[in-house]
């Protein structure tokens, strides 16, 4: 199979993250976490979540007797560059798996590549339904949650907070993630009685959203849903606040803004604008389970800051992959696929989790977050409002929002 | 009927009447000089002939065909070549390459996509170019970068380029300005020779009366945008008005 380490004493992982471009800070945090994971797998450091992980196949002696090494690459948040970088990892560095990829467009592009090349792809930050929906691949896995889950978790909280009679206006990043998130959130909120007034697409990275925000003012909507992420979201929410949206009363109700997908780094960037704004997350360092505590300690001591949910995702994926190899007793991608499909585990910060075999999507609890009104320090920006149980965000593998794809066969490559 | 017939041509620049109602007829196979004070409109008139300017009124016929509204390159292909008052050459190319371009244009027309033949194989063109350079006694400079020629040399190169096209009408705007006396004389000889050997008509603007009177068979004096007189050199020399307005005492 591709890049079989054979009798070599080391095995190489590839960490392909955005080191330049709008998600560079997320990428840096992912790198930190991945490095930490390798350290732990190789038995250095304090072992982090390996100590709390329900599977004990990893014993801190490397992987199947080999020391784990890694190479890193820059996706530049562009599909082309990401594929080039991934290809070089595969062809030049001989990596056995690739972990990472912020932005669903990139993740989908790289996932396809790994499928063709015959290595495992552990998708990092990708939240589009398509990654494990119409673009799913047998060699690809996703630990992160997705847009559907955000909708399912968020909608009830929103209904509770803002009532069932709301009129929502969507501003949506014009690519796969935005589209599926818009669809998911709209469906979830409409199911609760909200009305969707308008869906507007905005190009990626425009910077100034004011001309998209002004029409909201007179549209009769009383909720603005920002399907933006990273720098885009920071800009759009700040501008929405500048235009006085949050001070406005419409239809006799306080106007509200919702950011369905949150992240700590983003919240930091958005500053005051996110106070009281709801959104969802995959994980947060403020959780109190043992896995989280171990991870935050391990990460915090090494880097002097709490890990972001990007960091946790990439850490966990590295560990999950390694664990699957250890359990399968082989680096063969097909063996790894088999070991991961249907795998149930706990102790990695998200509570009991299932890797569903049908689409390679992880199922676990989803957090509903709110921008903290009175932060006490630099890292204390978001608070956990609700931990939505896994059952509430589950869906059938053939759910229409995920239809059309096909895992295909596992490809071990040449 | 002359080969070139200019009828009632006027040209204004804003409020300025650069040319008003100019009539001019150049007979085939003659050297026709246009002289006149600075700013009289001589260069402007030439510009109207080659398509650089379009006159406000009037007509310009070359060999029975109107040149008005045609592109400069079409006019050139009809057989009119022009030497400019400040040298216009291909400054980035060598002298020899400069020479080859008009020859290629003459041979291949306004456009030819001969992208896959090599220049080196165009023996006829190179030969002819070298020959022209000989005639202009510039052969030793053939591989010079033409932009770094002295100005007199640039001008000679430009004349050679125009001559190489064997135009039927050659327009010269102060061709010998800034040229050393020896070269001026050579140029006069060359023009004479060419006129004799080939079927060519020359219209020349000059302030150097030595050149004018050595070459011209007819002279038109232009002043303030209108022709003052047209006559033979002898008569012009003695024309009181011309002496006063243009030649001054020293001529």
């Amino acid at each position, binding site marked *: 199979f591709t890049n079989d380490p054979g009798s070599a004493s080391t095995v190489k992982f590839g960490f392909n993250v955005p080191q*330049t471009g709008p998600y560079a800070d997320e990428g840096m945090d992912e790198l930190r976490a991945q490095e930490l994971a390798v350290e732990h797998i190789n038995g250095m450091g304090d072992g982090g979540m390996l100590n709390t992980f329900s599977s004990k196949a990893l014993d801190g002696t490397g992987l199947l007797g080999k020391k784990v090494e890694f190479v890193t690459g820059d996706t530049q948040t562009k599909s082309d560059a990401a594929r080039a970088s991934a290809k070089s990892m595969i062809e030049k560095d001989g990596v056995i798996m690739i972990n990472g990829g912020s932005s669903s467009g990139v993740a989908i592009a790289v996932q396809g590549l790994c499928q063709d090349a015959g290595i495992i792809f552990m998708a990092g930050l990708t939240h589009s339904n398509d990654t494990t929906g119409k673009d799913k691949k047998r060699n690809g896995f996703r630990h992160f949650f997705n847009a559907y889950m955000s909708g399912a978790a968020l909608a009830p909280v929103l209904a509770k907070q803002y009532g069932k009679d709301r009129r929502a206006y969507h501003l949506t990043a014009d690519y796969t993630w935005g589209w599926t998130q818009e669809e998911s959130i709209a469906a979830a909120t409409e199911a609760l009685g909200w009305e969707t007034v308008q869906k507007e697409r905005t*190009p990626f990275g425009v910077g100034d959203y004011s001309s998209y925000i*002004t029409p909201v003012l007179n549209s009769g909507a009383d909720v603005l849903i920002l399907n933006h992420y990273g720098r885009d979201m920071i800009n759009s929410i700040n501008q929405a606040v*500048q235009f006085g949206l949050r001070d406005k009363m419409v239809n006799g109700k306080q106007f509200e803004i919702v950011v369905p997908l949150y992240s700590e780094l983003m919240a930091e960037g958005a500053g005051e604008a996110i106070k009281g704004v709801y959104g969802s997350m995959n994980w947060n360092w403020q959780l109190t389970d043992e896995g989280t505590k171990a991870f935050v300690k391990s990460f915090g001591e090494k880097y002097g800051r709490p890990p972001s949910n990007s960091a946790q995702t990439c850490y966990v994926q590295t560990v999950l992959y390694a664990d699957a190899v250890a359990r399968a007793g082989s680096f063969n991608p097909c063996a790894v696929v088999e070991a991961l499909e249907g795998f149930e585990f706990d102790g990695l910060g998200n509570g009991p989790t299932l890797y569903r075999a049908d689409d390679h999507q992880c199922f676990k609890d989803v957090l509903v977050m709110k921008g903290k009104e009175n932060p006490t320090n630099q890292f204390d920006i978001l608070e956990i409002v609700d931990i939505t149980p896994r059952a509430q965000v589950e869906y059938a593998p053939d759910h229409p929002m995920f239809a059309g794809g096909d895992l295909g066969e596992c490809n071990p490559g040449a | 009927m002359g080969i070139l017939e200019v009828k009632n041509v006027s040209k204004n620049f804003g409020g300025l009447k650069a040319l008003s109602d100019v009539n001019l007829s150049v007979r085939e196979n003659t050297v026709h000089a246009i002289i006149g004070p600075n700013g009289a409109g001589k260069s402007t008139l030439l510009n109207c002939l080659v398509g650089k300017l379009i006159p406000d009124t009037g007509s310009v016929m070359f060999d029975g065909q109107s040149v008005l509204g045609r592109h400069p390159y079409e006019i050139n292909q009809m057989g009119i070549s022009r030497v400019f008052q400040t040298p216009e050459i291909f400054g980035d190319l060598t002298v020899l390459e400069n020479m080859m371009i008009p020859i290629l244009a003459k041979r291949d027309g306004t456009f030819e996509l001969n992208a896959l033949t090599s220049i080196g194989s165009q023996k006829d063109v190179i030969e002819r170019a070298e020959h022209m350079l000989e005639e202009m006694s510039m052969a030793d400079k053939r591989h010079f970068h033409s932009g770094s020629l002295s100005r007199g040399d640039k001008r000679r190169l430009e004349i050679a380029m125009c001559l190489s096209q064997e135009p039927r009408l050659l327009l010269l705007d102060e061709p010998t300005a800034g040229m050393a006396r020896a070269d001026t004389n050579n140029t006069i000889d060359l023009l004479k020779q060419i006129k004799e050997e080939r079927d060519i008509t020359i219209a020349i603007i000059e302030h150097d009366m030595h050149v004018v009177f050595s070459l011209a068979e007819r002279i038109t004096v232009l002043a303030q945008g209108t022709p003052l007189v047209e006559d033979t050199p002898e008569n012009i020399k003695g024309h009181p008005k011309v002496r006063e307005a243009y030649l001054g005492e020293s001529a």
Partner: protein
Amino acid sequence: MDAILLQILNGLDKGSAYAMIALGLTLIFGTLGVVNFAHGALFMIGAFCAVTLNRILNLSYTVVDETQKDFLGNPLKVDVPYVKGIFGDAFGNAIIDWSVPLAILFSIPIMLAVGYAMERGLIKHFYKRPHADQILVTFGLAIVMQEIVKYFFGANPIPTPAPDALKGSIDFGVLVGLDVNAVVYPAWRFVYFCFAALVIGGVFAFLQFTTFGMVVRAGMADRETVGLLGINIDRRFTIMFGIAAAVAGLAGVMYAPINSPNYHMGMDFLVLSFVVVVVGGMGSLPGAVAAGFLLGILESFASMNEVKALLPGIDQIIIYLVAIIILLTRPRGLMGRKGVMED
């Protein structure tokens, strides 16, 4: 009606940014003839002047607060800015609050120095070099400036708020007799517009009412001859460059509260500002300003839902479409000078 009024306002502030950036760029590009791909970076540095001043004012000493815990469970360290310590709470807070306007003063010497260093150290040697070389060297410089900023400030946008007093919005609708809340416009954007008008006016006054502009234009057309007339054109080029850098920087400082500064913001504006300058016409200051506002307003209108419904995708291409139309109907843009960068 109110929607249109809103879009006009909206176009004005976008236009102000375009116009100011383009104004600086046209001084370097249209007047000095240097294709300056680092101009966006100058804008970005201006914005980071605001960030830096904000950080400086927020320089703090640490007090350990035993009553609270940090994320690792240790006692929380609380930062107290020195300015509060020095000037007392109220005044200290006010200074921090007004850090962006204060940054105008802070940025002018910095930007002049950056412009000076850039021109003397680098650009000076490139006036006579082909445009292609200028592109390469200024692009390289832009990358270097960006990466340095990224190294110190990270890749994420850094929120840099306007003073509290200017944070809210103004209800323009009421002023012109429309309903309350019909035309609400952020106060700071209006401030930005006024500021831009001031800067643009200042630059115009300087260049139109003195011979400085004429000399620089002449020097650009023919340095040699201007030197023969006894004029030290190098010095004037340096000054011009400094002014251009300062204008770009000022545009950036005041833009910080509108869009949180990040290291890449300059590149995002770069291409657009070149388009604006060229549509305005090379070498024309009024052209650049007019094109800036024109494109800003058109862009704003094109993103109205009514327009988009009619012509899908128009909001994405309006600027380029208008640029093409203008350049095809007017050979040298709106007010370009003949012979500037035409070959």
